[in-house]
C-alpha cells in the first residue's frame, strides 16, 4: 500500500470535477479541487431543467457538493490555473503569481464554453431584444420568471433554432454539439407548458436524438405540445418596427423559401472548448484535437488520458456531453487515475 | 251508453297512425325507381307474396331470428308482438261471437269488457279465459322488457340503445297499455263479474273499494289515452319499425336492392330497424371502446339526419352486424351508400392514368397494393406460377393503379370506376382467361364491380387448388396445427369459408374454433374504417389473437395480406398466408419427399 497519500489536483469544479474528486477521495487520495468561479457546480448552477426527465439540476449539484465535504478534499475557488509544468515527478500548477501547487497527477475537468451567439450576427443576438440563447431561457425559467418579450408581452410565436455555432464553418466549429437537439425539444416542451397558447417552431437540419428516450420526447413534443418542426437552417433574423422578428429559412422539404414573424427566438448554442484549454496546452503539456478540445490518447480505449502521462481529463473538456455522460466519464477518469497509481507501485 | 267518449283518444291516435302510415307507404313506394316498382308489382302477383307474408309472420311476430340468437330476448319480443296480435285476433272473434255479427266496430274488441258487461254469448267463459291468458302472456313480455331496460345483463346483452323523446313516450305508453288494460278489465270484472282467472281475481281485490264504479270510466279512459299516445308516438319512434319491416320484407322479396345513392328503399330499411341492439354486441369496435358508430346508431343518425363523417367512417365494414340483424338490414351496403352520398362532391378523375400495352398471357396476376407490402406472398405466388410453368403476366409488378376497392370503401364510387375502367381495359387486352388475385379486397371488387366478360376471377387458393387437383403442384402434409383466420372481405363479404380450408387441410391440420366463418373476428386492419386510431386497431386485433392463442395453433393462416400485416404486428403468434404455407410444403418437382418446413421464418417486410 501507499506510504504517503498521493495528491491529485482536479482543475475545474463543474460536475465532472466534483464527481472525479469525490470518487478519488473515497479511494483514499488527497484531492485539491480548483475552481475559477466563486462557487462549484459549473454551468449546471445556471440551468433549470435536465433532459429527458425535466428534473432539477440543483439536485445533482447538491448531491455532488455534499460529497465534496470529504476530509481528503480541499476546494479552492476563485482561482484559475494559468500554467501547468512538469517538475521531476511532480506537476506544478500555477495561478498567476499568487498560487503554486504540486501534485502527483492532474485531472483536467475544465468543461466547455458556450458558443457566443453574437458571433452569428445574422441572428441578431445582442442586437435585437427578443433574441435569446438556450442558456438565457434556462436562466429565465430557473428564476421562475414568466416568459415574456422584452416589452413584457406574452409571445404568440417562438422559434427555436438548432445548430447555432455548431456544424458551421462560418462559426469555426464544424462538429455537432450533440446535446442541443434534445435540449431544444425539452425547452420547446417547457415553453409550451408555460405558454399553452404560443406556437412553437423548431428549425433543424437533422434531429440528432441519440438517447433511447429522446425520440419519445420528440414525439411527445409533437403530439402533446403541438411543437412544429421545420427542416431548414435559419438564414437570418431581422427586427420589425414592433420588435417582433422576421426570420428566413428554407422549408427544405417543400423546396421553397419561408418567412415567418416570431415574437422570440431561442438560439440553441453549442459547446465550444473551454478558453482555459489554451493555458494547459501552451507549453505543450497537453495537446488539443482539431476542434480545440483536449486530445485523447486514444478515442476508443483511453478517452480519459491526455497526451501527457499523469494528466487525466473528464467531462466536456473532451467533447460535448450530457450530464449523465459527464458523470459516467468522471467516474471512469477516477478509475484511470487509480489504475495509474496502482501500476506505478 | 254514457262515457263512451273515452274512446276518442284511441280513435284519434288510430286515425293519426293510419294517415301517417298511408302517406309514408305511398311516398316510399312511389319513390322507388320505375323498374323497382315493376318488380314489386310483379312479385305481388306471384307466389312471392305468400312467402313475404310468411316471413312477416315468422320474423315480425314470432321473431324467429332473435329467438335463435337469444331465447329470452326472443320470448320478450314474441310475447309482445305475437301476444298482442293474438289479443287483437281473439278479441275480434269474441266480439263477433258476442254481437253475432261479422261486422263489429273495430274499437269494440279493444274495449270489449267495458261495452259487454254480461257473459250471455256462446263460449263467453272460454273467451274470457283465453283473453286473460293472452293478456298475461303479453304482460310477461312487458315485465321482461322493463327488466331488460334496467338490468340488461340478464338478457346476455351488454348494451342497449339510447332513447329519445318520442321513443320514451312510445315506450312508456307501450309499457302502460297492458297493465292499464288489466286494471280496466279488472275494474270491469269487479263491477260486472265477467273476467276470468286474472281479471276477476284482481277484480275481487278491487271490489273491496267502496267507489269502484267511479273508477271504471277513468281506468278505461287511461287505457284509451295510452293507446292513443302510443299510436301517435309510433310513427315518430322506433316502433315505426313494425309497419316498415313488413313493407321491407315485401320489397326485399320482390328483388329490390340498395343502390349507389339513397332511394326510398334506404328509408324503408332505415325505418325497419327496431333498435334491438343485437348489432352492438357483435361489433368489435366496442372492444376498443368505440360506442357510438355502430349500425344501429348509423340508422338512427340517418333517420334523424344528423350523420357526420366521424361516425359514418368509423366502421370496419366487417359485416358482423349484418349477419345477426333480425330484420335483415343490409348494414354494410347501407353505410357504403351513405359514404358515397357524403363524398359525392369530391371524386377524383385520375387524369394521369395511362393505358399501357399489355403482353399476352394466359393468366393475369394482380397482387394489389396490400400484397406489395407483404413480399412473402408475392414471392410465394411467383414460385407457384413458375412451378406450374404458367404463362402469366404480373400486372402490377412495376406500376399499376389500385384495384378501386379501398376507394369504394371510402365512398368514392365514381373515382373507383375510373380505376376499374383503366385496369379492365389493360387486363382484357392481355387476352387471358383467368385473373388470379391474392388479396380479398381486390377479389371482391373484381368479382362484383369489374366487367371482365368471360374472364374468370380466382382467389390465389382457388388457383392453387386447381393446380393440386391437376397434380401440377404437389404438397406434403405436415403435422402443423393451422388456425385459419377468415378475412372479412372474403368470408362474410364473399361467403368463401370452405375453399381455403380445403386447401389448407391438404397440408396441415386445421384447428376449428367457435369464432370462425360467419362469426370470425375482424383483424382490425380494415380499410373500411378511416377514423379508427391505431391503438384501437391493436385492441381489436389482440382480442382475436388472445382467442386464437387459447387453441394453441402452430400457425395462424390467412388469405389476406392486410390481415397478415395486422397480425404480424402482434408477435405472439406466427402468421402466414395460404400461398406461403403451400410453397413451404410444396414438393419440388422431380425430387419426391418433403421439403423441409421451417417452424417460423420471419420474412423481410417493407416496414
Amino acid at each position, binding site marked *: 500500500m501507499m506510504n504517503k497519500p498521493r495528491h491529485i489536483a482536479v482543475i475545474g469544479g463543474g460536475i465532472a470535477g466534483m464527481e472525479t474528486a469525490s470518487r478519488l477521495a473515497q479511494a483514499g487520495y488527497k484531492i485539491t479541487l480548483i475552481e475559477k468561479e466563486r462557487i462549484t457546480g459549473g454551468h449546471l448552477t445556471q440551468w433549470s431543467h435536465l433532459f429527458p426527465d425535466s428534473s432539477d439540476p440543483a439536485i445533482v449539484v447538491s448531491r455532488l457538493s455534499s460529497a465534496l465535504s470529504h476530509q481528503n478534499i480541499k476546494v479552492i475557488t476563485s482561482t484559475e490555473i494559468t500554467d501547468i509544468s512538469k517538475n521531476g515527478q511532480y506537476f506544478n500548477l500555477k495561478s498567476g503569481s499568487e498560487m503554486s501547487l504540486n501534485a502527483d497527477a492532474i485531472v483536467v475537468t475544465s468543461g466547455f464554453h458556450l458558443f457566443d451567439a453574437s*458571433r452569428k*450576427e*445574422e441572428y441578431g443576438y445582442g*442586437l435585437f431584444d427578443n433574441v435569446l440563447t438556450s442558456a438565457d431561457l434556462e436562466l429565465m425559467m430557473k428564476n421562475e420568471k414568466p416568459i415574456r418579450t422584452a416589452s413584457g408581452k406574452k409571445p404568440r410565436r417562438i422559434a427555436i433554432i438548432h445548430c447555432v455555432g455548431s456544424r458551421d464553418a*462560418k462559426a*469555426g466549429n*464544424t462538429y455537432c454539439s450533440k446535446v442541443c437537439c434534445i435540449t431544444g425539444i425539452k425547452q420547446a416542451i417547457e415553453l409550451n407548458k408555460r405558454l399553452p397558447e404560443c406556437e412553437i417552431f423548431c428549425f433543424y437540419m437533422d434531429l440528432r436524438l441519440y438517447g433511447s428516450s429522446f425520440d419519445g420526447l420528440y414525439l411527445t413534443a409533437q403530439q402533446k405540445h403541438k411543437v412544429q418542426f421545420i427542416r431548414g437552417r435559419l438564414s437570418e433574423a*431581422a*427586427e*420589425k418596427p414592433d420588435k417582433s422578428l422576421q426570420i428566413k429559412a428554407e422549408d427544405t422539404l417543400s423546396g421553397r423559401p419561408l418567412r415567418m414573424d416570431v415574437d422570440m427566438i431561442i438560439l440553441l448554442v453549442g459547446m465550444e472548448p473551454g478558453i482555459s484549454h489554451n493555458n494547459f496546452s501552451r507549453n505543450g503539456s497537453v495537446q488539443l484535437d482539431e476542434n480545440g478540445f483536449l486530445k485523447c490518447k486514444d478515442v476508443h480505449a483511453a478517452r480519459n488520458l491526455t497526451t501527457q502521462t499523469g494528466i487525466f481529463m473528464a467531462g466536456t473538456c473532451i467533447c460535448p456531453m450530457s450530464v449523465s455522460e459527464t458523470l459516467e466519464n468522471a467516474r471512469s477518469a477516477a478509475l484511470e487515475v487509480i489504475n495509474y497509481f496502482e501500476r506505478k507501485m | 251508453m254514457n262515457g263512451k267518449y273515452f274512446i276518442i283518444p284511441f280513435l284519434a291516435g288510430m286515425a293519426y297512425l293510419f294517415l301517417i302510415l298511408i302517406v309514408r307507404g305511398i311516398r316510399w313506394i312511389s319513390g322507388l325507381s320505375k323498374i323497382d316498382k315493376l318488380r314489386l308489382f310483379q312479385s305481388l302477383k306471384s307466389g312471392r307474396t305468400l312467402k313475404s307474408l310468411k316471413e312477416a309472420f315468422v320474423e315480425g311476430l314470432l321473431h324467429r331470428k332473435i329467438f335463435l340468437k337469444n331465447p329470452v330476448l326472443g320470448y320478450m319480443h314474441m310475447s309482445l308482438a305475437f301476444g298482442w296480435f293474438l289479443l287483437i285476433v281473439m278479441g275480434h272473434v269474441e266480439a263477433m261471437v258476442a254481437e253475432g255479427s261479422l261486422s263489429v266496430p273495430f274499437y269494440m274488441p279493444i274495449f270489449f269488457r267495458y261495452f259487454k258487461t254480461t257473459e250471455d254469448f256462446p263460449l263467453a267463459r272460454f273467451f274470457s279465459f283465453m283473453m286473460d291468458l293472452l293478456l298475461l302472456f303479453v304482460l310477461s313480455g312487458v315485465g321482461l322488457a322493463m327488466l331488460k331496460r334496467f338490468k340488461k345483463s340478464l338478457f346476455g346483452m351488454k348494451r342497449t340503445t339510447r332513447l329519445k323523446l318520442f321513443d320514451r313516450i312510445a315506450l312508456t305508453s307501450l309499457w302502460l297499455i297492458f297493465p292499464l288494460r288489466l286494471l280496466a278489465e279488472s275494474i270491469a270484472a269487479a263491477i260486472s263479474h265477467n273476467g276470468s282467472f286474472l281479471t276477476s281475481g284482481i277484480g275481487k281485490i278491487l271490489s273491496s273499494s267502496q267507489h269502484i264504479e267511479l273508477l271504471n270510466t277513468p281506468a278505461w279512459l287511461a287505457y284509451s289515452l295510452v293507446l292513443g299516445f302510443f299510436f301517435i308516438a309510433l310513427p315518430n319512434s322506433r316502433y315505426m319499425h313494425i309497419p316498415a319491416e313488413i313493407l321491407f320484407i315485401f320489397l326485399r322479396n320482390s328483388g329490390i336492392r340498395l343502390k349507389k345513392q339513397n332511394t326510398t328503399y334506404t328509408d324503408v330499411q332505415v325505418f325497419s330497424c327496431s333498435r334491438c341492439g343485437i348489432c352492438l354486441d357483435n361489433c368489435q369496435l366496442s372492444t376498443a371502446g368505440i360506442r357510438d358508430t355502430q349500425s344501429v346508431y348509423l340508422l338512427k343518425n340517418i333517420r334523424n339526419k344528423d350523420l357526420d363523417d366521424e361516425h359514418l367512417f368509423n366502421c370496419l365494414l366487417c359485416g358482423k352486424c349484418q349477419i345477426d340483424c333480425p330484420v335483415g338490414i343490409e348494414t354494410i351496403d347501407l353505410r357504403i351508400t351513405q359514404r358515397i352520398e357524403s363524398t359525392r362532391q369530391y371524386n377524383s378523375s385520375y387524369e394521369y392514368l395511362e393505358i399501357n400495352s399489355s403482353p399476352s398471357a394466359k393468366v393475369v396476376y394482380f397482387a394489389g397494393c396490400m400484397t406489395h407490402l407483404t413480399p412473402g406472398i408475392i414471392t410465394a405466388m411467383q414460385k407457384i406460377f413458375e412451378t406450374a410453368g404458367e404463362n402469366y403476366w404480373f400486372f402490377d409488378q412495376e406500376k399499376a393503379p389500385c384495384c378501386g376497392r379501398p376507394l369504394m370503401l371510402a365512398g368514392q364510387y365514381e373515382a373507383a370506376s375510373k380505376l376499374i375502367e383503366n385496369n379492365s381495359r389493360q387486363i382484357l387486352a392481355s387476352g387471358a382467361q383467368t385473373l388470379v388475385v391474392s388479396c380479398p379486397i381486390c377479389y371482391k371488387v373484381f368479382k362484383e364491380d369489374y366487367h371482365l366478360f368471360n374472364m374468370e376471377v380466382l382467389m390465389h387458393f382457388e388457383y392453387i387448388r386447381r393446380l393440386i387437383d391437376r397434380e401440377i403442384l404437389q404438397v406434403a402434409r405436415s403435422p402443423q396445427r393451422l388456425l385459419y383466420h377468415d378475412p372479412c372481405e372474403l368470408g362474410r363479404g364473399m361467403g368463401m369459408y370452405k375453399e381455403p380450408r380445403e386447401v389448407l387441410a391438404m397440408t396441415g391440420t386445421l384447428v376449428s374454433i367457435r369464432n370462425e366463418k360467419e362469426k370470425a373476428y375482424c383483424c382490425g386492419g380494415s380499410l373500411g374504417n378511416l377514423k379508427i386510431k391505431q391503438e384501437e386497431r391493436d385492441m381489436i386485433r389482440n382480442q382475436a389473437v388472445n382467442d386464437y392463442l387459447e387453441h394453441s395453433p402452430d400457425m395462424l393462416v390467412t388469405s389476406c395480406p392486410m390481415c397478415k400485416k395486422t397480425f404480424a404486428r402482434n408477435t405472439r403468434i406466427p402468421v402466414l398466408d395460404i400461398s406461403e404455407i403451400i410453397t413451404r410444403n410444396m414438393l419440388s418437382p422431380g425430387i419426391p419427399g418433403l421439403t423441409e418446413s421451417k417452424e417460423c421464418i420471419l420474412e423481410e417486410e417493407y416496414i
Partner: protein
Amino acid sequence: MKKTAKIKWADFNKEIADDNYYYLRSCIRQNFFPGSEKAFLDILRHNLHKTIFDDASHTTCAGIGYHADIVTFETLQTIAARHFSLMNERGIPSAVVSCITSFGIYSEILATWEEFPEEKEKIRAYLKKATGREFEVPENVVHSCDIIYKFRNEIAAQMKSPLINQKTGKPLKIVDHIGCHYSKMFPERGVGGAEFPKVLTGMITAWGGETVDYPERRHCCGFGFRQYLVKSNRSYPMSNSKKKFESMAPYKPDAILANCPGCTMFFDRWQYTLGQIEGKTYGEDGNGIPVLTYEELAGLVLGYDPWKLGMQLHQVDVEPFLDKMGVQYNPDDKYKGLNGKYINQPDFSGCLKV
C-alpha cells in the same frame, strides 16, 4: 473544410491605405452618376489632400459581362491583371475601386490567386502574350466608400451641413444599402464584415444622421445582371426592389444611401417605374425616397453644389432631402449647363406624375 476565424465581424476593420491611390472607375456610375466620381476625386484632392491618380488607360473590368456569363473567368482575370500592370507602371500600390461589382471581382481574383497560385501564373502568361505586360498584385485594394469611411471624421471636421433636419433639429433618418459584392462573398474585405457592414452607417452617424435597421436591409436590390439586362426578365429586379421599399417604408427614411452604383441607380429608377405602373410611392407626400451615393452625401455635407454633384440626374427628386438638410441651392440652376446655359429639361422628374 473551409473554416473562418472565430471573430466577431462587428469589430472588424479592414486595412485601408492612407494615401496615394490609383482610381478604377465604374461603368454604371459614370453613366448614371457622373458627378459622383468627379466629387470623389475633388473631395480626396481638395478636402482631404490626398494623391489619387485618374488614368485614361484603364478600361471596364468587364464584370457585368462576367456575371452575365458572356465573359470568361480567364478574360476577366487578365483584364484585372492589365489594370494591376498599369498601377505597377505608375508605381502606385493601392487601388481604389469605384464599382462594387468590380470590387467584388478584384476580391474574387485575389482570393483565387491566393488559393490557386497556378491560376495566377496562367493569367500572367495570358497577359504577357496579349499585351506584353507584366504585373504584380497591388498591396491594397479597397472600394472608394472605404476611403470616405476612413476619413469620415476628417470630413465631419469640415462639415458645412450636418445630417440634421433643420426644421425639427432631429437627425435625418437614412437607410443604408450595401451592394452584395462588397462583402457578402468575402466578409474580411468589408468594414464590419458581411452581415452589418459599418461602412455607410459609419459615415451617416459621423455626420450627424441616424440609421435604421429594417427587415429586408440585407436583401439584394435585385439587379441580377442578366435579370436586368434582358428586358423580359426585368420583373425580377423590380420585385426585389419593391420588397425592400415595402420593408423600409414603415420606418419613414429621409433617404436611401447605397455604396453600389447599380443599386443606387435601381432604387432611383424602380421607384419611378413602380409609381408609373402601380401608382404607388414609398416616400412622404406621394414622393419617392431620395436615393444618394455616398460621394453625393459627402459632397452635400461638405457644402458642394448639388447640381455640380449631378443630383439633377436622379429620377427621384432630391430637393426634399436638400431642404431638410438645409443645403443652399438654386432651383433655377438645376438644368443649366457648363456656362450657365439652359440645357433643356426632362418631361418631368419624380415617381408619380399626377
